[in-house]
């Protein structure tokens, strides 16, 4: 085969050709075999398993979420090597805890599982899975940016879609009004009062010299000599 050609494949190497799901039941469909394996291996870490619309949801204890995901990634009978998504869900009912959601795929076995950990409001902190999946880097940053969930062990947990000095809070939280927390005039006033150089990242501050304008927490991290580059 020459360098100018491409391999074409009809189907994956393992297993028969899967088919489009039809007539999926709302609840009570057959669970992904990984859920059973998880319950056997992590007796206390796995709280319950639900199947909704054919998708398996495993509720895990926040403390063991990292271990569960590590095991799913490493175990040869599971091989969940692809992290599709990290996100969070906050319900309209204020008493319901916030859920951190991981969507994992096993490319060799063609499996899909959703892992959920419920975090009570006030202690929004959980272990990062960045050491297992590099794709968690930006996904966790976005989750922190939008919900304020801190991922322990993430190498560079700073805002990604909003700017570092954004002061209105976390936009996807239910207590955040759709129009923003500040009035339009206040938003405009803050925008005009901002030092544009303060939007540089920490590495660039060597040339930007806007250290004093940065948020307190960011200055602390910086003064400890933290490197936050990718």
């Amino acid at each position: 085969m020459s360098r100018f050609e491409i391999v074409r494949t009809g189907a994956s190497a393992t297993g028969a050709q899967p088919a489009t799901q039809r007539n999926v039941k709302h609840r009570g469909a057959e669970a992904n075999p990984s859920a059973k394996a998880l319950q056997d291996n992590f007796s206390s870490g796995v709280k319950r398993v639900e199947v909704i619309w054919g998708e398996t949801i495993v509720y895990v204890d926040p403390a063991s979420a990292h271990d569960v995901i590590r095991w799913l990634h490493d175990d040869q009978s599971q091989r969940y090597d692809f992290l599709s998504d990290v996100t969070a869900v906050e319900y309209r009912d204020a008493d319901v805890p916030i859920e951190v959601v991981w969507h994992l795929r096993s490319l060799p076995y063609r499996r899909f599982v959703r892992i959920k950990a419920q975090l009570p409001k006030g202690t929004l902190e959980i272990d990062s899975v960045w050491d297992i999946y590099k794709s968690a880097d930006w996904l966790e940053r976005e989750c922190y940016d939008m919900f304020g969930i801190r991922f322990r062990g993430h190498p560079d947990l700073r805002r990604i879609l909003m700017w570092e000095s954004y002061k209105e809070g976390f936009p996807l939280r239910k207590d955040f009004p759709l129009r923003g927390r500040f009035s339009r005039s206040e938003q405009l006033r803050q925008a005009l009062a901002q030092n544009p150089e303060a939007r540089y990242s920490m590495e660039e501050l060597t040339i930007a010299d806007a250290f004093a304008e940065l948020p307190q927490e960011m200055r602390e991290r910086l003064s400890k000599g933290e490197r936050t580059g990718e």
Partner: protein
Amino acid sequence: MSKRTVEVELSTTGLDAQGRPQRVPILTDDGGGGLALQAPPGIEPDLEGEHMLINIGPQHPATHGVLRLVLELDGETVVRCIPHIGYLHCGFEKIGEYRQYNQIICWTDREDYLNSIGNNVAFALGAERLFGIEVTERCKVLRVIACELSRIMSHLVWLGTFCIDIGAFTPFLWAFQRREEIYRLIEKWVGARLTTSATRVGGMAADIPSGWMDGLRQFIRTFPHTLDEIDRVLTRNAIWVGRTVGLGVMTPEEAINWGLSGPMLRASGVDYDVRKDFPYLDYETYDFEVPVGTNGDVYDRYLVRFEELRQSVRILQQAADRLPDGPVNIDDPRVILPPKSKATSEMESMIHHFKVVMEGPRPPIGESYVAVESPKGEKGYYMVSDGTSKPVRWRIRPPSFVNLAAIPKMVEGHLLSDVIAINASIDIVMGEIDR
């Protein structure tokens, strides 16, 4: 880290005291035998160890939108790359929590705006799983046609802009000419070119007009000629190959671990296509192949996307041949609007019309994550319902966001001019990244 060196032919007379080649001015023959170019005397000053910080974007045509890259350069080699995004953030996910399901479809147009009709289909599929709806056979085939047309449109924009970034202009014009034909087809079908909003939960906004399939068949017949022409100009072109081979290499393990999907992942040799591995819309019944690269560099990404264009034409041909007659929308007055003539003449239809518009369809409590193979990769919509007509949470899994996250890994160690080629090969759409 691989370093590519550019070898420039210099006439050197020897080494200086530090062991560096001593440069002499280039002589041009102007007939008189004198010096046409005067070089500064002595050798270049010592620049070793000095790094330069340069900023590309957010307003730069080669960043394909409002991406900002801060690059630390050692000479011309990128030592570090820091991407900044968020300049186009509109809060789609927040707004979706205040909108009914059919209203959110209009927002899906605007995120990955090169693939808007494909996003409509993806969202409708997610919502339909949440509602427990199976769409009709005709609707499925029409959606496949919509998805593949938008894949061709998106890949053509990518191809054209990639050519422009690297310096080829002609394929850009050819690609955009053909893209215009698809836009005309889409416009005839749904009335809009870019902001299509073509689907509804349980069906489509409109069936195709009469004679539309002739236009599609015409396109299917003539489009491969354009592909052949572009292929002839680019694939074995020495400049093209020289600018793309060996750049931004991702090994299969790295590509999976960094969460790359779509052509980016397949160029690295990982055989993962949502249409094959987790099929939807009966994709398993279509006969098509998945192109897979071997080297995971920019050139293989080009080959993979190029072959995908051909495979999309194959799928379109099969869909055009099998399009069955019958209704497009399901027969369920709780989610589908009644025909206008009935809504104004029958009491029940009018009530249904009022309830679907004012209250909106209500799914049962539950959640769904449906991923489709968008031109950029695995695009997923995750929806959580609490039984009301508006989702508790609507999440977009943006493929180009995750793909772009790997750009520091891909560009570090390469030359500044290669950053443009690598960035173009990711095929980013900032509307989708920032949402």
